């Protein structure tokens, strides 16, 4: 499996961030895992690291239910970023089973997204890698 340089977790829940980071590390999916607990902090990080390939995330795992800027508002702001500031893919991490209403929202946006239900597992990571990061052999 391909290994990513950086994955960013955007989630206000530190426990989830801890667990997801552990899953990523144990499955050796990325060299670096960055956890941001607000949408604003995540956007700042994307802008700040656009020139640094090692630190700029290729994949974002996004929580929806966050205080302040929620996941949908983060996506709206993300859409307005310059191409160089964006990552390659965003996976929306839903708290419960999929909600079709919410999924419709992202169809209007030109963002490579998929939806997964928490908690993140190794199998889930493999699927994400298969869809968004196919090896270019």
């Amino acid at each position: 499996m391909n290994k990513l340089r950086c994955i960013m977790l955007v989630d206000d829940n530190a426990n989830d961030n801890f667990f997801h980071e552990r899953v990523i590390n144990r499955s050796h999916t990325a060299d670096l895992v960055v956890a941001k607990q607000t949408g604003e902090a995540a956007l700042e990080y994307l802008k700040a690291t656009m020139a640094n390939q090692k630190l700029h995330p290729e994949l974002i795992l996004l929580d929806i239910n966050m205080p302040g800027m929620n996941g949908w508002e983060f996506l709206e702001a993300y859409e307005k970023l310059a191409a160089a500031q964006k990552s390659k893919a965003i996976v929306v991490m839903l708290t419960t089973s999929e909600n079709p209403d919410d999924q419709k929202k992202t169809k209007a946006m030109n963002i490579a997204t998929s939806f997964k239900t928490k908690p993140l597992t190794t199998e889930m990571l493999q699927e994400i890698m298969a869809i968004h990061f196919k090896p270019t052999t």
Partner: protein
Amino acid sequence: MSITITQKELAFQNQEKEDRATELSIAYKKIASQNEEKGIRAKELSIANKEIAFQNKEREKRAAELIIANKELAFQNEVKEKRAAELVIANAELAYQNREKEKRAAELSMANIELAYQNEEKENRAAELIIANKELAYQNEEKGKRAAELSIANKELAFQNKEKEKRAAELIIANKELAYQNELNEKRAAELVIVNEELAFQNHEKEKRAAELSIANIELAYQNEEKEHRAAELIIANKELLFQNEEKEKRAIELVIANKGLEQFSYIASHDLQEPLRTVSNYMLVFKEDYIDVLDENARQYLDSVDSAIARMSLLIKSLLDFSRLGHNADLVFVDSKVLVDVVLSDLETMIKTSGAMIEVLEMPKLNVYEVELRQVFQNLITNAIKFRKDNIKPKIEIRSQAEDDGWKFSVSDNGIGINPLYFERVFDIFQRLHTDEKYEGNGIGLSNCKKIIQMHQGKIWVEANPAQGSTFYFTIPNLTT
């Protein structure tokens, strides 16, 4: 007139006076001539005294003749005096007549004033007459208009008269017909005499019946009274019902609001409950990954129990969430329910094969339903029918439908363990289970989902069952318009 006569009389008398005067003049001339004669005689006397003696004798003769002539004059004077007296009287008469004339003149003056007043009155009357004439002219005009209207009315009457004549002609024909019928009636009358005799007999019978009816009427009157009582009671009851209906409508509205609130609550609760549970679950995994090697067998069993409790709680929360989401964004679709059931059966293929279930689907209708939700109903009912089977007896399941007045009745029957009638209602309540997990696995949400879905379709769901024959679940779906 009298004046004229009097004047003539006066003229006549004046004539008489003139005549007398003429006579007197003549007499005076005679006297003068006689005096002349006397002078002559005297001279002759002187000459002839002799003659005198003779002549004296002649004088004496002449004196006697003068006496006679004086007597004649006296008589004539007397007549003249008479005439004068008569003139005085005549003058007095004239004065009287003049006075009378003045009186008449005064009376005429009065009469003239009266006439002048009367003329004035006549002029007033004339002015009034002019106004009256104008009024009459206007009334004549009006009469002219009325006459024109009457002319039209007369034409109308003439037309109506013609119509009446036609009717009269028709009546004549009708009368002839009546005359003919009268003849017939007379025949009938004769027959009626016979019939009357019969009727008299029947009347007698009727009187008997009437007496009986009189008793019956009293009974009816009593019953009517009772009915009125009931009617009065019904009116009160209706009012009460109306009030209760109103109350029910209020409750219905309150229920709709409450249900929405509950759905919202269920969604939030299940959503927010899921998160800490997941954290527990995650740390359980982390804990086992890191420390499983240092735990003894007991500790590992305890952790397994915690895991299964977490799994069960997670399932319950997920079920609650699904239940609260039922019917969201659902649209009525016209579907072939046979196809719908076939899809469910193919989804359950493994379970059916494993259990060896025999499933028969009889004729099924096409109708408007919430497709995904109704599929879930069939899936739950078929799953239950397989799950709650008797030991060592292969499940036999029949799925039927039956047309009703306003929709369809479906049934899913099995030959399983049945349900105690005590729990016919309770099985549809959420998280209600009749069996332990060891015996029959489940989370107690399937039938409550079914109930909610059928209620969405404005239908009913119920169960009939006994331990010998198994259970039959029925539900109805009325004709729904999209």
